[in-house]
């Protein structure tokens, strides 16, 4: 295993600045640093480590620990170097006898109220207090508890007479992942500041004053778990002692090495150090030089990795003749030849196009590339699709039509330059938490926020943040709202005409301007449809158009509608109208759902597109791959996921290889998905667990987690990040090897020895990846595509000098009401989403301690709607649509408007997708998850569907004992 050499990630004490150069002298060494830099950091840059405890370079300087004091010639006293900015010609002494004496005195006081159990302490070897005691030369502590007197320390539970010490507090172990031991706290405030400045949750505070000062989570009766704490881990990372400590470290000891890798949860794509002790992963720590996360993390990436070793993991291949049979464990050869023979047999009987693949947005680029190649080169058809179908396919279509590429336009750093942030149909604090923290930081610094969402999501009002405007639109009316914003901008003359003339097609703009100026698009005219206050909408439009750098961030609340693609075009129109494209702080930013949903699209997972978003109809594109692969490529688009299921029900689609995706739980209209799967003769599930789809599978190929393989993920900002093998695959093979073995069992003759070879093939065939190779990723850490001769170091910002397609296109966006309408039978609108602690179908997070935050899906319903139905908080309720029905518990909240209900889809026993329908985006077939007409009523137990489903699942998951 090759260890990645970690660049210097030592703590520099205070943050980097960008001012004009200033030269000073520290301990006789001349140092030049940007204006605004602290003396502490300037010394660190010169290689001089000034002792410190309360300073950390991801926090504002605080100046409380008094350990970093220095002497500066011409100044009185001994200022704290963390809070003292450099000045030209300053002469600093960091190690004079005077400051050494002060530091030793300070340390002596700290240690007088700290237990001396270093040898058995969980932070032994990883404790800054211990390090600083050594650095200042502390040899003696003169302060001891007075004999026979009241004990005045915080760390002993009882005094020598056995009396309880009122100052002592027990450990708080309520959080499943870390413990809080108040007896070891030095009140440096780093945890409190990290919670405020880095995470932006403000869950922690210092309670009391002076000697009574204590770190406190939440209010008087709270512990960590009941407080607002989101368990992001920033406080644990900030703590210099064992006060806030990962339980894994307490249990397993400190790490001895680390490997930099990329989180496999959401589309933010955070970089982590996987810290190892021997071959055991003891901790995941956000990597400071990760360009997506800049050293921050959320509860999922930081802590929820235990699923990799969960007992439910299947490590041996299994097959069965019929889905009514129990599974039979077999060796790899038998499983692969069984699968290959069945697939080839189906093709012989039902035609070449009777089988297909679903690539995984959770697997690496290299793995995804091989799965689509399997369809195109080995199956001989284009029946490949990916879960992006059900999330961001409208982004691909909409931005492709307007800008010429589906790419999000910015990097995440861009938010630091934004003046007006518009969040549409996204819930970043739950779905993209690390980006949300960066966004909130920018809003606290003065940027304005506009939230367009049916629910009052956390961003609307959260500590120290309030949205300037919240437009709580009725689900399904996105196009009307976005068009009304454009109407205001155009009719009030707020557009950036110079930008439009220079960068966009003027004729199309004029047609668009005439269209959008029609009074039927005005906020007043559409408010009856949308439910949005026209004055509020006008104010929001004016703010976006005139408030400086305007950036739009959007999620699946935009795409997962009948008019998803149209809304994406409307959003692109807004950015073009206001000239908010092509520089830092602006842009159109799709927040991708899964870790590699961007990459899976880039890699040609869609049935109509070869890698690099090139339509299969193009002979010149096919020629590139025909030459590389030595096969003929079908010129016709293949089946999309919903089309595959329809064709299966029709009897023309009989076999599916589904990698790392659980379509039965994640795709809409579960009954239809189940019927499609049941109609197939060979379903191959390649996954970590017997997921819901596997209930209908004939072959199960065990998968590997992101910890067990090499490869790359591409995040929402098009950033290609390395995934590095931390432990060997528990199932014996990385997923790319399994796909290769399946391809070879079907006669492919592939010989990839490492994912780097696959990336070479991607670079050789795909212009936007032409410059990408593992050596470059090793050198740069990550790159954003396009990365090629024109952009050898990648492309942080798109469309800087012109749109990808040349001139930007304004497209007319007429609102068309969805056919999913409320009526007497189904009077409420259901919209769906996700929650911070759980991820997608929950296959991973449900198998971690994250269930303490969310152990079941609940139905959010407005108290008025609940009252008329006689529902109380916590009641079991029946949720029914024309597609199906399920039961779950009700949660009464005014976060949803009257008429709207909301739930998540993390748990298979709820199966929220039994309710969702087969309506989909007009252009891409992206399902309309966000609008379903439903009825809610009291329930006295699981529905027949739930009972039948549970029985079928239990039956389908039986595994025969292995034959000896």
């Amino acid at each position, binding site marked *: 295993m090759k260890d990645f050499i970690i660049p210097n990630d030592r703590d520099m004490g205070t943050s980097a600045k960008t001012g004009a150069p200033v030269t000073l002298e520290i301990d006789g060494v001349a140092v030049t640093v940007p204006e605004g830099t602290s003396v502490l950091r300037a010394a660190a840059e010169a290689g001089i480590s000034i002792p410190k405890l309360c300073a950390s370079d991801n926090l504002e300087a605080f100046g409380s620990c008094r350990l970093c004091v220095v002497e500066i010639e011409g100044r009185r006293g001994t200022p704290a170097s963390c809070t003292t900015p450099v000045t030209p010609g300053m002469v600093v002494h960091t190690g004079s006898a005077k400051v050494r004496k002060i530091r030793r005195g300070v340390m002596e006081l700290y240690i007088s109220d700290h237990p001396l159990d270093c040898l058995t302490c969980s932070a032994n070897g990883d404790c800054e207090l211990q390090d600083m005691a050594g650095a200042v030369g502390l040899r003696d502590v003169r302060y001891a508890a007075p004999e026979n007197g009241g004990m005045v320390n915080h760390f002993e539970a009882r005094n020598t007479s056995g009396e309880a010490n009122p100052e002592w507090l027990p450990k708080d172990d309520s959080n499943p992942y870390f413990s809080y031991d108040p007896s070891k706290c030095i009140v440096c405030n780093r945890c409190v500041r990290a919670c405020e400045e880095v995470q932006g949750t403000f869950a922690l505070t210092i309670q009391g004053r002076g000697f009574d000062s204590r770190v406190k989570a939440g209010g008087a009766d709270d512990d960590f778990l009941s407080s607002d704490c989101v368990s992001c881990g920033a406080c644990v990372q900030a703590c210099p002692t064992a006060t806030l400590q990962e339980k894994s470290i307490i249990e397993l000891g400190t790490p001895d090495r680390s490997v930099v890798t990329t989180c496999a949860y959401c589309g933010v794509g955070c970089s982590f150090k996987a810290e190892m002790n021997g071959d055991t992963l003891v901790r995941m720590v956000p990597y400071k030089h990760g360009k997506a996360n800049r050293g921050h993390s959320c509860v999922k990436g930081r802590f929820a990795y235990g699923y990799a070793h969960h007992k439910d993991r299947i490590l041996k291949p299994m097959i069965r003749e019929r889905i009514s049979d129990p599974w039979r464990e077999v060796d790899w050869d038998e499983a692969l030849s069984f699968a290959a023979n069945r697939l080839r047999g189906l093709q012989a009987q039902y035609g070449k196009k009777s089988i297909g693949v679903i690539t995984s947005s959770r697997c690496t680029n290299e793995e995804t590339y091989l799965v689509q190649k399997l369809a195109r080169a080995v199956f001989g058809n284009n029946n490949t699709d990916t879960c992006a179908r059900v999330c961001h396919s409208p982004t691909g279509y909409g931005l492709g039509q307007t800008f010429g590429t589906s790419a999000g336009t910015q990097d995440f750093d861009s938010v630091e330059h934004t003046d007006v942030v518009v969040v549409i149909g996204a819930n970043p604090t739950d779905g993209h938490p690390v980006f949300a923290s960066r966004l909130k930081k920018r809003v606290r610094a003065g940027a304005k926020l506009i939230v367009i969402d049916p629910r009052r999501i956390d961003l609307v009002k959260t500590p120290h943040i309030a949205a300037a405007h919240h437009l709580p639109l009725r689900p399904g009316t996105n196009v009307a709202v976005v068009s009304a914003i454009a109407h205001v901008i155009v009719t009030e003359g707020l557009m950036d005409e110079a930008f439009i003339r220079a960068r966009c097609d003027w004729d199309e703009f004029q047609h668009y301007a005439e269209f959008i100026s029609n009074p039927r698009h005005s906020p007043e005219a559409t408010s009856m449809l949308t439910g949005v206050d026209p004055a509020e909408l006008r104010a929001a439009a004016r703010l976006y158009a005139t408030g400086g750098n305007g950036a739009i961030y959007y999620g699946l609340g935009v795409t997962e509608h009948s008019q998803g693609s149209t809304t994406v075009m409307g959003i692109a129109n807004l950015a073009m109208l206001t000239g908010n494209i092509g520089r830092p702080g602006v842009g159109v930013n799709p927040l991708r759902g899964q870790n590699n949903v961007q990459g899976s699209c880039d890699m040609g997972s869609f049935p109509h597109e070869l890698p690099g978003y090139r339509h299969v109809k193009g002979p010149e594109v096919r020629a590139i791959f025909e030459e590389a692969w030595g096969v003929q490529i079908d010129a016709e688009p293949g*089946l999309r996921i919903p089309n595959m299921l329809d064709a299966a029900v029709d009897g023309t689609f009989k076999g599916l290889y589904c990698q790392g995706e659980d379509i039965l739980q994640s795709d809409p209209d579960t009954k239809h998905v189940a019927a499609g799967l049941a109609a197939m003769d060979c379903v191959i599930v390649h996954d970590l667990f017997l997921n819901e789809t596997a209930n209908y599978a004939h072959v199960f190929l065990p998968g590997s987690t992101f910890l067990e393989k090499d490869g790359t993920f591409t995040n929402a900002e098009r950033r290609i990040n390395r995934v590095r093998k931390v432990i060997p695959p528990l199932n014996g093979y990385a997923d790319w090897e399994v796909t290769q073995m399946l391809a070879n069992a079907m006669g492919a003759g592939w010989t990839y020895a490492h994912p780097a070879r696959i990336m070479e093939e991607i670079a050789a065939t795909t212009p936007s990846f032409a410059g990408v190779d593992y050596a470059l990723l090793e050198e740069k850490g990550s790159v954003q595509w396009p990365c090629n001769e024109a952009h050898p170091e990648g492309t942080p910002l798109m469309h800087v000098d012109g749109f990808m397609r040349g001139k930007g296109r304004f497209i007319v966006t007429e609102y068309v009401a969805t056919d999913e309408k409320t009526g007497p039978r189904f009077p409420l609108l259901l919209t769906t989403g996700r929650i911070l602690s759980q991820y997608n179908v929950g296959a991973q997070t449900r198998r971690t301690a994250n269930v303490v935050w969310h152990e079941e899906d609940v139905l959010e319903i407005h108290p008025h709607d609940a009252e008329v139905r006689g529902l109380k908080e916590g009641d079991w309720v029946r949720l029914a649509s024309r597609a199906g029905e399920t039961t779950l518990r009700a949660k009464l909240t005014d976060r949803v408007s009257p008429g709207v209900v909301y739930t998540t889809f993390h748990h298979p026993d709820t199966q929220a997708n039994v309710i969702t329908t087969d*309506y989909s985006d007009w252009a891409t077939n992206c399902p309309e998850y966000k609008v379903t007409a439903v009825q809610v009523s009291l329930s006295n137990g699981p529905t027949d569907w739930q009972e039948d489903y549970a029985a079928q699942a239990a039956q389908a998951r039986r595994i025969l004992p292995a034959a000896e």
Partner: protein
Amino acid sequence: MSPEKMVHMANQIATFFKTQPGTDQAARVAAHLTDYWEPRMRQQLRAFVDAGGKGLDDIAVRAAHLIE
């Protein structure tokens, strides 16, 4: 695919392109279908149109005649 679902999908596409400027809406619907609908879906649409095309938007019917 059920005929109702196919009609619904084809009509959605037609509805979008009808709102767009120009006079070639049927051709643009046909181009969209050719680019994104797998051949057996297009054949099903074509056969449905040949059998009367009940419920299909006029533009979708005209588009169906333009696709291969």
